[in-house]
């Protein structure tokens, strides 16, 4: 769906994106992670033809961008750096105006399509109020509605849950996952690890303009080969397993073993009360922090 090769963007002497080779497959929910200022937005803008690359190439939906924007962009829905609307008009009027602005916006079916996307994002009930009176969360939903207007094959979203309350985040996550299940590929740019962890199937990590990691999420979150045990008899576990215990923190222990079931059996067999037992996994946070260096906007210049 998205494939870039050596994609590079310089702004003067600053290299915003450096030799980026992305590979997003059809059906992915791709999490594009990076600190603020790492080049995520510039990359998204290059994929959409807003910013022109200094060198390298970007193929979106199998066509080169920005050369084939006429073919590509009608099949892409996007939200870049927050939604933007004409504040004095209603949400419905804004969507109608956007729909009327380009090709494929059949006038007769417009009202129906606008209603559909408003319903999808949970804004079916609002009307008449100008967008400037909307809350941040409502604007965010309206931005998503605008992205969905073309029934896109690819959704490119930059921080889609920004400004939403927990219920709103859940709604949107549910909507995106449903769209993905129906075949929409989602490219989700975010600095929120939790958001990516909950939704994405593949992850790319950008650090100061360079892609430092690109992998399936379940591979990144593979087991560490240790099992976490919580018990009221930590000393008993230690005595039983001897060298396999790698750490104790109060009633929590880390045990080196690949077989959680066998460990459980041994503990129970020895009469040790097991309160919790789970294989330890690499957390996305650890993986990302290990792959990246200091965030660029915290760096001393």
């Amino acid at each position, binding site marked *: 769906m998205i494939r870039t090769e050596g994609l590079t963007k310089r702004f003067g002497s600053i290299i915003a994106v450096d030799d980026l080779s992305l590979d997003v497959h059809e059906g992915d929910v791709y999490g594009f992670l990076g600190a603020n200022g790492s080049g995520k937005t510039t990359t998204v*803008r290059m994929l959409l033809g807003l910013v022109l690359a200094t060198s390298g190439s970007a193929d979106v939906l199998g066509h080169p961008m920005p050369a084939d924007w006429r073919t590509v962009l009608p099949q892409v829905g996007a939200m870049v750096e927050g939604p933007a*609307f004409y504040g004095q008009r209603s949400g419905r009027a804004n969507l109608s105006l956007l729909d009327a602005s380009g090709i494929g916006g059949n006038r007769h079916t417009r009202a129906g399509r606008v209603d559909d996307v408003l319903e999808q994002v949970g804004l079916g009930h609002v009307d008449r109020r100008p967008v400037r009176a909307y809350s941040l969360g409502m604007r965010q939903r309206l931005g998503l509605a605008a992205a969905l207007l073309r029934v896109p094959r690819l959704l490119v979203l930059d921080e889609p849950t920004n400004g939403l309350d927990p219920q709103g985040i859940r709604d949107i996550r549910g909507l995106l996952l449903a769209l993905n299940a129906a075949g929409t590929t989602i490219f989700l740019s975010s600095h929120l690890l939790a958001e990516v962890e909950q939704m994405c199937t593949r992850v790319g990590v950008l650090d100061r303009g360079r892609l430092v990691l690109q992998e399936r999420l379940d591979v990144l979150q593979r087991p560490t080969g240790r099992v976490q045990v919580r018990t009221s008899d930590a000393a008993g576990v230690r005595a039983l397993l001897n060298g396999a215990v790698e750490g104790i923190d109060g009633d929590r222990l880390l045990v080196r073993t690949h077989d959680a079931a066998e460990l459980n059996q041994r503990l129970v067999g020895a009469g040790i009360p097991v309160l919790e037992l789970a294989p330890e996994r690499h957390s996305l946070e650890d993986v990302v922090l290990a792959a990246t260096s200091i965030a660029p906007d915290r760096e001393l210049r």
Partner: protein
Amino acid sequence: MIGVEIAKMLRSRRTWSTILLIDSLPTLVAVLLALTDLGPRPGTGPAFLSAVLTDGTLFPLAALAIVLPLFLPIAVSITAGEAIAGEAQQGTLRYLLVRPVGRTQLLVAKLVSVLVFVVLTILVVAVTAYVVGTLLLGQADVIGGGVTSVSGSQLTTQELALRTLLALGYAMLCMTGVAAIGLFLSTMADSPLGAALGTLTVLISSTLLLTLDAAQSLHPYLPTRYWLSFVDLFRDPILWRDVERGALLQVVYVAVFLGAAWANFMTKDITA
């Protein structure tokens, strides 16, 4: 897309308040003239103003001469400066471009919408001025229908109407020149205000240089040089020289600045 842009412009409250403001000055002048009957002496003040006291049908031209040097260019600068930079500042530019709307297409639509604004404003000014003029100041020679040209000879009503239309067209062309400069700066600047002020700076500099003898060699190329030459259309016979030069100069300005606007916008990184 062109229709959408025109609709946006027509439905904007600012468009109509601007037109109302522009329209109010000549109307005020007409009321004052009618009340006091004190016109400027012939040869002083804005063109035609001394003649309208005797003939209200000339008032559209007087109104044009009143708004053309300052009011109208300000309004056109603001509208043209807003075109791209306004969308950029609101953030709506990126969503229009990924909608997708082609960059050339967007620029053309914006240009057309600014031109519609120009035509609309000038027509509103002319029509109100005609109505106000004939109502308040009366017509000079209802039977003969003739009015006195600037050169002193008589013009028939038909001649007058034709020349008035020519003058309006000429004023529109001059404002198109302003619109082209404004549109170019609108693709350059980050804020619509910056683009509008930049355009006004160009026009004010031009007006200033026109008063400076040392800049004599530049005068024929300054954008505001021939703006008021439409007065020559009411000489008998018509003095075409300055009108022709003015029209040609505006065409060159329009071509150069629109070309520059297009070249800049096509290669611009949209980071707003």
